């Protein structure tokens, strides 16, 4: 057992830091750190193109498809450094979700067609999985795709298609065979959102912004080649998609950034005329959370480096998701309470991005905290609800 990071990683970290320092402008950093949902669209597109030019846009992809060849721990360091430096959040649907599915299951034509535009920031993807009647119980999805000549005709409704209002491509799970067992009758389709019959409607979520959509599919005709892989392989592809980033659901980078944010708030906000950070009760609360973040950090390292365990890695990945999402909510709640009643002010995305903290009554750190808290109520729901994760753990780890 060697529990020290390889010293060569220090050089790597320094290289990443230097790049971030010379590349990220102050305004970009400010808008990223405010942390609105959705993030600033122009900033994230700029960041995607910038990283593409640098060759760092898709570290997790195999080198043959545009990856960096970095080790898991290098990728982890890269993510941590980007977040700490205040880099914009990349759009994840293409780079993290469907990209790996395409290079794993797609035909050579599909790979050539779809992968480069993701890397180059030319196409943006929305994920059409959930439906009004199929949330956690995804396998009960009803959107149908029926073969008619050389085309599939798709009908149904998708929900929770995050950021589809900023996207021009979509990947959709549809039922192609209602006669077989539910898992075996699902296929994945890739098609442009301007295909006739597709209607995207963004709706307001409790954080006061529009980052989520419902998508209506009304006699949408797509060619056979829009199907990814063989008919009926969609369920396996979806499971691969949800499972292939075992550690990212912990969002450990954000947890560290949130600790910094809370510290900044507490160093400025006063309680009885003294900085909140000097209050013993507050320090204890913050320290407790800090310990949980440190533990999660090492739990992520253990999964990344495939540490021996008495429990299967699928259980450990769900453990990261359960703890990571819970911790995100706790951190946002502490940030909110540190802010006091000023946290009640509603900042929309537009107001948040424009907020420079020039008014002494409303310093920089007052924006974004509450929107984050509200948005994060969803983080124990999306990507497999907390309760589903616990079902998985009980089954996989203990055979219950």
């Amino acid at each position, binding site marked *: 057992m060697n*529990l020290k990071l390889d010293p060569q990683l220090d050089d790597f970290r320094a290289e990443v830091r230097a790049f971030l320092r010379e590349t990220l402008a102050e305004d970009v950093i400010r808008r990223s750190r405010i942390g609105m949902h959705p993030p600033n669209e122009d900033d994230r597109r700029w960041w995607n193109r910038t990283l593409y030019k640098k060759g760092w846009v898709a570290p997790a992809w195999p080198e043959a498809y545009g990856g960096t060849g970095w080790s898991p721990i290098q990728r982890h360091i890269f993510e941590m450094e980007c977040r700490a430096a205040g880099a914009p959040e990349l759009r994840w649907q293409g780079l993290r979700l469907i990209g790996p599915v395409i290079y794993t299951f797609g035909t050579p034509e599909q790979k050539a067609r779809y992968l480069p535009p993701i890397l180059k920031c030319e196409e943006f993807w929305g994920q059409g999985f959930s439906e009004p009647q199929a949330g956690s119980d995804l396998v009960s999805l009803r959107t149908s795709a029926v073969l008619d000549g050389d085309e599939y005709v798709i009908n149904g409704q998708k929900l929770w298609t995050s950021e589809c209002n900023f996207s021009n491509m979509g990947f959709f799970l549809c039922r192609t065979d209602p006669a077989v067992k539910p898992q075996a009758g699902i296929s994945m389709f890739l098609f442009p959102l301007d295909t006739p019959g597709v209607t995207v409607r963004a709706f307001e979520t409790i954080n006061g912004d529009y980052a989520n959509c419902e998508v209506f599919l009304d006699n949408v005709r797509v060619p056979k080649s829009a199907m990814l892989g063989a008919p009926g392989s969609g369920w396996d592809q979806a499971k691969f998609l949800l499972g292939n980033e075992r550690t990212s659901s912990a969002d450990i980078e954000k947890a560290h950034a949130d600790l910094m944010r809370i510290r900044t708030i507490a160093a400025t906000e006063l309680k009885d005329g003294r900085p909140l950070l000097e209050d013993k009760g507050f320090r204890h609360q913050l320290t*407790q959370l800090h310990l949980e973040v440190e533990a999660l950090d090492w739990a992520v390292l253990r999964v990344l480096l495939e540490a021996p365990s008495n429990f299967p890695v699928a259980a450990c990945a769900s453990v990261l998701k359960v703890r990571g999402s819970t911790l995100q909510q706790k951190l946002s709640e502490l940030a909110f309470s540190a802010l006091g009643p000023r946290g009640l002010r509603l900042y929309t995305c537009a107001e948040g991005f424009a907020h420079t903290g020039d008014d002494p009554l409303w310093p920089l750190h007052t924006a974004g905290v509450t929107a984050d808290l509200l948005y994060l109520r969803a983080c124990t729901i999306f990507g497999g609800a907390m309760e589903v994760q616990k079902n998985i753990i009980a089954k996989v780890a203990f055979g219950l």
Partner: protein
Amino acid sequence: MDFALNDEQRMLVDAAARYVRDNCDLEQRRQTSRGDDGFSREHWRNFANLGWLALTLPERAGGLDWGVVELALLTEQLARGLVIEPVVDTSVLCGSLLASATSPHADSLLARIAGGELFAALAHIEGGGRCEFDTPLATTATAAGDGWRLEGTKHLVFGGHNAGLLVVGARLEGGELGLFAVAADSAGLSRTNYRLIDGSRAADVRLDGVSVPGDALLLRGQAARDALALAIDKSIIAGCGSALGAMETVMAMTADYLKTRVQYGKPLAQFQALQHRMAEMLVETEQARAMLCRALSLFDDPAQRPAAVSAAKVLISKAARWVTAQGIQLHGGIATTEEYAVGHHYKAMLAFEQRFGDSDWHLARCDTLIDRSPH
């Protein structure tokens, strides 16, 4: 960085797991914990033969000079069998203090510890103190001829009921701390023994003009305080390893029980409330293991060690108390009986939380973490 065990670590873990599986059953432990010694001398001889009492001791005194990683691996396995023998108090806590002393007398005592011939206990806490760090120090050591004369009362001397060697903290003239190696059969030394909830024992020790030779003074002043902090941090790491062993054992026992116990016409394993509780127990246990890895990684850096050890103790003892308590809850009444191991694991975790400074104390010691930049 690599979390896989090397060959030597693998052998250590396998040997300890095998020993516990073959030799440490609860009924025998209950018997010996009620006997005169409170533990098994046969186990102790075997531990010595297996090298476990020499594990972290320096080579010059017959030790193996292994680190805290191996220590935690060993105690994790021993805890699975609720081993009650005073490995930590004797070999880790007092062993570390004697090793810091680097004197011929201390080395000869270490050799006897490594060989399993000597039990040792730290006699430092006094009435009014909650732990070794905050204890008042009213016990005095006065120079007397070539030696010293000790006067005072020590409280909560864990494992001190039959230890042959007591490492006694006393105030020297001028007020600085002195740590003394005191033979328990010294004239003027008397003990009041009592049982603890985890089956182990402790003593209050009265030093009524106890005379010790000059070389009994092992360490003094800052060196004594540093050595004490190091020895305690090492012992806490040992306790963290034990906590992991307790949590995993309790989870395994509980999962088995849920599969066999039938209520309302079906196995308890089919009740989602209980499945989710088990999942939460694993979440806590995995975080605890991660936190132990973090502490082990930072242990050899003196600037980071205290906060890292405290952070681990706070997080792990909270997790361990909760997980073992849930083990009792999910079993139901059976786990509240003395014949069932789960309750013993819970008691061991209560003891872990209270020893070497409780969670409040350690939370305060690591709250400087939040003032530091994360990188």
